[in-house]
């Protein structure tokens, strides 16, 4: 004679469950109580859920088999490990911030210093060679330094792709006096980030930024080709070859392109920091 459903749906089960816990609003409660009068299935289900709760509540609290207080010696060992991690992380963050400041300083120097012409002759060859030669040894030096962190040795290899912006910075750096230190710092910070950032998470972000960088590259070459009065229309297959001999052209391109490169580098660093923070938040 009653038309109760053969089985309650999830919503009704949830209603009954909340009813047991006294978590229903007065209105919902009143409505459910009316239904309980009319629907036997609702009533029996409520009784069974209530019985389950009663059974769970009947479980006695267990006495812990021992004390779990930390042995100061043991804790110190463990906390020391924790301390190193915390220290490394703050170092990493500081490195990232330092890198941004550095990049901004470089940008200012480059765009502000219109007398960039003077150091450029020396810079030009460096520009051509540095990206190939200089970063590699720096990387090699940076990687072992960070490899000390336990369990991170394998991850250390990953930073290589992320160094792409660093060589670009070499391009931006030529007329800045502190080139070697600056670059080394940059490399360190870039290399340090992935220690915390899960490679999987960092990779796509980095890849995206790298794509941006790659997309930016033609723009980098374009002005140098244009301002190179000698062969304005010739699209040289090797941009380095074209830039190296032409001092003024290189000067122009460096000055125009430096902010873009600096911006891209800053973006990479920011992306890495965001990934680090997100990772850390997830670890909580």
């Amino acid at each position: 004679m009653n038309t109760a459903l053969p089985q309650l749906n999830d919503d009704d089960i949830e209603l009954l469950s909340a009813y047991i816990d006294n978590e229903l609003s007065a209105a919902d409660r009143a409505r459910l109580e009316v239904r309980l009068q009319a629907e036997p299935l609702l009533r029996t289900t409520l009784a069974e859920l209530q019985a389950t709760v009663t059974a769970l509540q009947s479980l006695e609290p267990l006495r812990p088999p021992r004390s779990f207080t930390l042995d100061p010696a043991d804790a110190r060992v463990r906390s020391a490990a924790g301390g190193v991690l915390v220290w490394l992380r703050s170092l990493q963050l500081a490195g990232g911030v330092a890198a941004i400041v550095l990049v901004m300083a470089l940008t200012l120097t480059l765009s502000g210093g219109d007398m960039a012409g003077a150091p450029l002759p020396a810079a030009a060859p460096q520009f051509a060679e540095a990206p190939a030669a200089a970063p590699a040894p720096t990387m090699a030096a940076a990687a072992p330094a960070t490899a000390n962190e336990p369990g991170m040795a394998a991850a250390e290899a990953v930073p290589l792709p992320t160094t792409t912006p660093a060589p670009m910075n070499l391009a931006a750096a030529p007329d800045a006096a502190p080139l070697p230190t600056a670059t080394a710092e940059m490399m360190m910070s870039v290399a340090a980030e992935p220690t915390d950032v899960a490679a999987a998470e960092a990779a796509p972000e980095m890849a995206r930024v790298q794509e941006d960088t790659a997309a930016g590259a033609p723009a980098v070459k374009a002005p140098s080709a244009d301002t190179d009065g000698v062969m304005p229309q010739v699209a040289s297959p090797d941009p380095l070859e074209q830039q190296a001999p032409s001092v003024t052209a290189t000067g122009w391109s460096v000055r125009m392109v430096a902010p873009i490169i600096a911006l891209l580098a800053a973006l990479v660093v920011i992306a890495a920091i965001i990934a680090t923070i997100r990772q850390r938040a997830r670890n909580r």
Partner: protein
Amino acid sequence: MSDEEQRLVAAAQHGDIESFNALVQLYEGRVYNLCYRMIGDADGAADTTQEAFFAAYRHLQRFRGGSFRSWVLRIATNACYDVLRARKRRPVVSLDAVGSSDDESSPLQIADSGETPDEFAQRRELARAIQHGLALLPEDQRAALILSDIEGYSYDEIAEVTDTNLGTVKSRISRGRLRLREILRQGELLPLRYRHEGDGAGAPTEGRDG
């Protein structure tokens, strides 16, 4: 959080391990019980409890106010998930062993004086059946059910501990209760019967008392 607790947390954050240990003593019972119900065996629960307190100590700087109890319980819940995940990859103890009568793996239950041996045996049987049933629940439902019905925390605190919202907590609890009811039924140990056992219906009655 009481003033005293706040003071202990602050001192512990400044490296005072004695203060931290005072906090451990405040919460080790709760943490151990949660771990035991989640993991299902005494050794695993003890290891996980210890691991949770180590993790809490290591990450103490990340605690920024709020309920310290919820924070510790959240760390413990996550430690349990980690252990269960690791066991799924490399099964060490079969979950079935939890339901069997290996007394050495069950910790001592606090004795209830004035209980007949029969009642005690029944209570143990039910406890074992429930523990077995809990082990068959999905982990998030298991955690929600333990926290609400065994440990008696509010929906709000459960949401905080399990890092989710109230709606999800409600749904996990209700689904967990329903699943557990079905499991206990299949195991021929009806909670309803348990509820009526005070009327002398402890022996199998073939459903005549309904």
